[in-house]
C-alpha cells in the first residue's frame, strides 16, 4: 500500500537528532561541572539554583519525552507494517477471488448453455419417442 522506507528514514533521522541532542546536553552539563572550579561564587550558585539546574531537568525530561515519542512511533511502525502486510495479502486475495469468480461465472455460463441445449434435445427426443409410439400403434404392435 505504501513505501515505509520514507518514514523509517524520518524516524532514523529523528533518532539521530535525539542522540545528538543528548550528547549536546551531556556536553553542556559537563561544561557546567568544569566551570565550577573556575566560577563558584554566590552568583554562580544562584544562577544554577534559579535557572540552570531546572533547565537541566526540563531538558532531560524533554529528551526523555522525545525518546518516548520515538518508542511509540517504533511501536506504530510495527503495527503499520503488520497492517500493511495483512492489507496487501487481503488485497491480493481479493484479486484472486475476483479472478476465481470470473472463472466460476464463465463455467456457469458454459454449463447453462449446455443445459439449454440438453433441454431442447430432451424435448426433441421425447417428441421422437411419442411419434415412434404413435407409429407403433398405427402399425399394430402385435399383428
Amino acid at each position: 500500500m505504501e513505501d515505509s522506507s520514507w518514514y523509517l528514514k524520518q524516524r532514523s533521522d529523528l533518532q539521530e537528532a535525539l542522540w545528538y541532542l543528548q550528547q549536546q546536553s551531556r556536553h553542556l552539563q559537563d561544561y557546567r561541572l568544569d566551570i565550577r572550579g573556575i566560577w563558584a561564587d554566590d552568583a554562580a550558585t544562584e544562577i544554577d539554583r534559579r535557572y540552570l539546574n531546572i533547565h537541566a531537568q526540563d531538558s532531560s525530561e524533554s529528551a526523555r519525552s522525545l525518546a518516548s515519542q520515538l518508542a511509540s512511533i517504533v511501536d506504530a511502525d510495527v503495527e503499520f507494517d503488520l497492517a500493511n502486510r495483512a492489507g496487501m495479502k487481503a488485497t491480493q486475495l481479493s484479486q484472486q477471488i475476483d479472478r476465481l469468480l470470473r472463472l466460476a461465472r464463465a463455467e456457469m455460463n458454459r454449463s447453462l448453455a449446455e443445459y439449454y441445449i440438453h433441454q431442447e434435445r430432451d424435448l426433441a427426443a421425447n417428441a421422437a419417442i411419442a411419434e415412434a409410439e404413435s407409429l407403433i400403434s398405427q402399425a399394430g404392435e402385435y399383428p
Partner: protein
Amino acid sequence: MPTYDPRVISRSIDTLESEIQRFTDISSETSQQAGYVQLNYRERAERVLRWSAIVLDRALNDTLEVRAVNDEVDRLVIQCSEAVEIAHQTLANSEHIRTRSIATQDRWRVELQAALAWEARAEAELSSAKAAREKAESQVSRAMHALSKAESALYSCQSDSKRNCSGHQAAVGAARNNLATAQIALQQAEARVRAAEADLALARARVAQCRKSLAIADVAVTRSHQAVSIAIDSLARAESSLSDAHAAQRKAIEAQYKAIEAEELAKETVTRSRQAAANVDTAQTHLYQSIKFNDSAHNLAIRAKLDLDYRNEQLRNFNRLSSDIS
C-alpha cells in the same frame, strides 16, 4: 577560599552562554523535527485507517458476492444433476421404444413373408382350380357330344321297327349318366375356382396390410433411432453441463476459502491500523510533554542568559576598574 580571575570567569561565562545557546538551538531544531515527523505519522495513520476501511469493505463485499455465487452454483449443480437423471430416463425410454419398434418391424416382416407365401399358395391354387375347371368343361362337352351321338343312333334304330334298339337305348342311358357326372365335376371345379379366388383376395389384402404396417414400422424404427441419437446427445449435454457446474463450484468454493481468509486479514488490517493510530496518539502526547519541557527549558535559558550577561558585565567592569588601579 579560592581566588578567581575575572577575565577567566568572563570567558567561561561567555562559553557557558554559547553552550546554552547551542543546546537551545539544537533542542528547538530537534523539537521541530519531532513535530514534523509526528505530523507525517498522523497523516499516515489517517491514510492507513481509510485504506484499512476500504480493504475491510472490499473483503465484506467479496464475502457477500462469493456467498451469492456459491448459492447460485449450488442451485445450478442440483439443476444439472436432475437434468442428467432426466436425460438418462429419456435415453432409457428411447432405447425401449427403439426395441419395441424394431420388434414390431420384425414381426410385420415375418407377417409379410407369411402373407406373401399365402398369396403364392392362393395363386397356385387358383391356377390349379382353373385348370381343373377347364378339364371339367371339356369332359362335359365330350359327354354332351357322346350323348347326342348315342341319341342319334337310337333315333336311327327306332325308325326301323325290325331292329332291336335296346343296345342303343342302353348307350343313351350311359351317355346321360356320363354327362351328369361331368356336369357335377364341373360344378365342383367352378366352386373350387371361386374359393381359390376368394382366398387369393384375402391373401392379397393381408399382403397389402402387412406392407402398410411394415412401412409404418420402418418409419417408427427410423424415428426411434433418431430418438436414441438425440437422447444420447441430450445426455452428453447434460453431463457436460454438470461437469461445468462442478468446475464452477470448485472455483466458487476456492473463492469462499479465500474470502474467509481475506476477511480475517482485512479485520486484522483494521485492528493493526487502529493500534498504529493509537500508538501515534501516544507519541503525540509524549511530543506535547517534550515541547512543554523544552519551552520551559528555553525560557530558563533566556532568563539565565540575562543574568549571565549581567554577571559578565559586572566582571568586565570590575576587571576594567582593577586595570585602572594597577
